[in-house]
């Protein structure tokens, strides 16, 4: 609690005690007036002053003026008619309770989000002549060597020049598995060094470092207002004057009608009282505070889960996503070649391990990605085996002597070159299927000592979580999932089939991807822009910046450290796990659900109270309870979005 909040709390308590004590005091109405003025002024002097200032500065109606009008009116009524001052004081008291709660809740969630986003490094360690010196990270220049000790945050992006450690990246990515770094690895600011001392040569300035950029992004996110927020500010602008005019009409019209048309007693007091109650109810605080708070908390909660949403408007759009277009390479697949299967030929006398062994050796000196994949799959390539007479045959593959055996490794053409009839050696489909596929997948054929020995399939591996991600997206309400790829049709369809994606566009150039997204956007068209289903595009941020910006929502994956992607996208996933896309959609849905709950609940209760008040069923007491109560509930509801990241 801040000092001001504590002061307000004391004022409220003192005023409440006075009010209770005055319950037992009975005196002349003028004496009572003076006595009741004590708690009234204690608790409400600032409201009255603000209202006065508002009039002097010709500010439009605000809640201070409304509360002042209502309470002063109620006091005047008490003075001349009822003699009951409790109501006016209590209304002011409850109003202040509401204000206090609101300011406390907002402050609390502000610091909560601050804690969630606690990645701002406070200092950097420079190595001086007499030990380590702590400096402001702002002062560290590029290419300076800094020291990060166990338990400290890495303050600035850089490259490890000495030491190794495991880093806790959870504040950035939401990923709890630590990442191990060694000399030569790039590290990003905001990670926590859990063990080991690291010496890092900085590659960026503090302002340009990942942690600073992320914080900037999240803090600016709530400035981009969503349609719901704009609706609320428009609503508040119209609503307050409408209610005030209705209040005036309510005070004047019915008594006049009663007098002139019906010929009964005017009952001015009753109608003025109802009009004042109207004013009490009219304050739109619950909406004005809870909607931005929901978005703010939602964005904060999402960033905790490694999902950076660049604005409330994108969070709102994300909840309306019906079509998700995904890039294949790097998004659904790893984008790295790996050996996926080894099929030794029957009767050739080699098992899978032996085949891989020979292939890896033959490719010992090649830097081709396929050779790298083979060596990686084999692992211990530098054993004692002899590799001689290596000859690269362009367009075909490699021939080499491994431990005295002549090994041919390459595409199907090399089999023919080796003088072996492939169709005879294996089933017929092999020849048809073979060849180096245009895309991520390839089949490697091997001939050993003049005999066909088998084949090794190498492809771009589907991420282990891709299938789950597609399933979760469907469950979250995405009706159409489309895969775009520059790869060949066959490989694209194989991936599509495995993941359950039916709509696939393959062999696309980067420019074609934009056209396809345009086409798909047309399908989403709806006359009513608010109802229109949204299209999201998810890519790894490499080469797809135009598509990211053309889609309603561009989602960049695995963007940690990639500036271009962070720049172009609307939603940035720190991780490259596609499941995060589904999670982002779920968080946005939950956030929007809470926003709508609050809108309908607050407006509903207000309208109901206004109606009940107009026909005299609700007094000022109930009005203030409704007002403060709705606000408290709406704020508590809004705070739930803060935890959307962990529960979705």
């Amino acid at each position, binding site marked *: 609690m801040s000092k*001001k909040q504590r002061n307000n709390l004391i004022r409220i308590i003192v005023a409440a005690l006075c009010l209770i004590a005055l319950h037992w005091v009975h005196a002349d109405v003028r004496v009572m007036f003076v006595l009741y003025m004590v708690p009234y002024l204690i608790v409400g002097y*600032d409201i009255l002053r*603000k209202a006065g*200032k508002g009039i002097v*500065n010709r*500010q439009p109606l*605000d*809640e201070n003026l409304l509360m002042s009008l209502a309470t002063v009116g109620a006091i005047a009524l008490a003075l001349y008619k009822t003699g009951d001052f409790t109501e006016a004081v209590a209304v002011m008291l409850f109003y202040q309770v509401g*204000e206090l709660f*609101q*300011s406390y809740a*907002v402050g609390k969630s*502000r610091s909560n989000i601050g804690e969630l986003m606690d990645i701002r490094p406070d200092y950097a360690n420079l190595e001086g002549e007499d030990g380590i010196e702590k400096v402001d990270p702002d002062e560290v220049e590029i290419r300076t060597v800094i020291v990060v000790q166990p338990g400290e945050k890495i303050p600035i992006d850089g490259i490890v020049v000495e030491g190794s450690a495991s880093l806790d990246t959870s504040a950035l990515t939401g990923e709890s598995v630590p990442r191990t770094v060694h000399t030569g690895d790039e590290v990003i600011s905001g990670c926590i060094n859990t063990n080991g001392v690291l010496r890092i040569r900085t590659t960026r300035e503090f302002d340009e470092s990942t942690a600073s950029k992320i914080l900037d992004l999240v*803090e*600016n996110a*709530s*400035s981009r207002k969503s349609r719901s927020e704009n609706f609320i*500010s428009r609503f*508040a602008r119209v609503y307050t004057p409408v209610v005030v005019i209705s209040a005036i009409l309510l005070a004047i019209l019915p008594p006049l009608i009663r007098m002139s048309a019906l010929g009964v007693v005017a009952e001015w007091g009753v109608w003025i009282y109802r009009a004042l109650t109207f004013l009490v109810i009219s304050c739109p*605080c619950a909406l*004005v*505070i809870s909607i*931005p*708070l929901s978005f*703010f908390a939602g964005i904060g909660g999402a960033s905790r889960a490694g999902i950076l949403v660049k604005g409330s408007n994108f969070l709102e759009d994300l909840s309306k996503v019906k079509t998700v277009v995904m890039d294949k390479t790097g998004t659904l697949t790893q984008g790295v070649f790996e050996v996926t299967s080894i099929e030794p030929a029957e009767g050739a006398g080699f098992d899978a391990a032996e085949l891989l062994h020979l292939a890896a050796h033959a490719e010992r000196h090649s830097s081709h990605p396929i050779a790298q994949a083979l060596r990686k799959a084999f692992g211990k390539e530098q054993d004692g085996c002899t590799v001689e007479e290596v000859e690269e045959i362009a367009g075909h593959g490699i021939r080499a002597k491994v431990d005295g055996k002549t090994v041919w490794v390459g595409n199907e053409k090399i089999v023919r070159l080796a003088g072996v009839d492939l169709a005879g050696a294996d089933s017929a489909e092999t020849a048809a299927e073979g060849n180096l596929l245009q895309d991520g997948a390839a089949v490697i054929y091997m001939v050993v000592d003049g005999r066909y020995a088998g084949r090794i399939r190498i492809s771009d591996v589907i991420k282990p979580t891709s299938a789950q991600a597609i399933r979760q997206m469907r469950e979250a309400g995405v009706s159409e999932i489309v895969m775009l790829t520059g790869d060949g049709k066959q490989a694209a369809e194989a991936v599509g089939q495995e993941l359950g994606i039916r709509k696939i566009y393959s062999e696309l150039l980067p420019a074609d991807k934009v056209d396809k997204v345009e086409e798909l956007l047309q399908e989403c068209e709806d006359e009513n822009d608010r109802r229109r289903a949204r299209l999201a595009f998810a890519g790894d941020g490499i080469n797809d910046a135009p598509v990211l910006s053309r889609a309603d929502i561009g989602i960049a994956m695995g963007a940690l450290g990639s500036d271009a992607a962070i720049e172009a996208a609307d939603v940035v996933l720190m991780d490259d796990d596609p499941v995060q896309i589904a999670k982002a959609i779920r968080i946005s849905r939950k956030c929007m659900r809470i926003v709508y709950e609050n809108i309908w609940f607050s407006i509903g209760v207000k309208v109901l109270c206004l109606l009940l008040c107009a026909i005299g069923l609700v007094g000022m007491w109930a009005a203030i309870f409704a007002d403060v109560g709705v606000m408290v509930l709406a704020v508590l509801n809004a705070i739930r979005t803060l935890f959307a990241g962990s529960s979705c």
Partner: protein
Amino acid sequence: MKKTYKIYVDCANCANKMEVAANKTEGVKEASVNFMTLKMKVEFEEGVEPQEVMKEVLKNCKKVEDDCEIYYE
């Protein structure tokens, strides 16, 4: 030139009022107030002295909401 200032204000509506007041101040091209992060972003006109302008901004803000503060020094 763009600058970001820390502010103090108590209610969301008051923050909106500050935004309007800041935008009306001479020398301010565009100002936006973020209540949730308690920050004011001001884009200044060419060739003005930010400190001088901010003094006026604060004065105008105080007019609409006296319970506010802009930490521009």
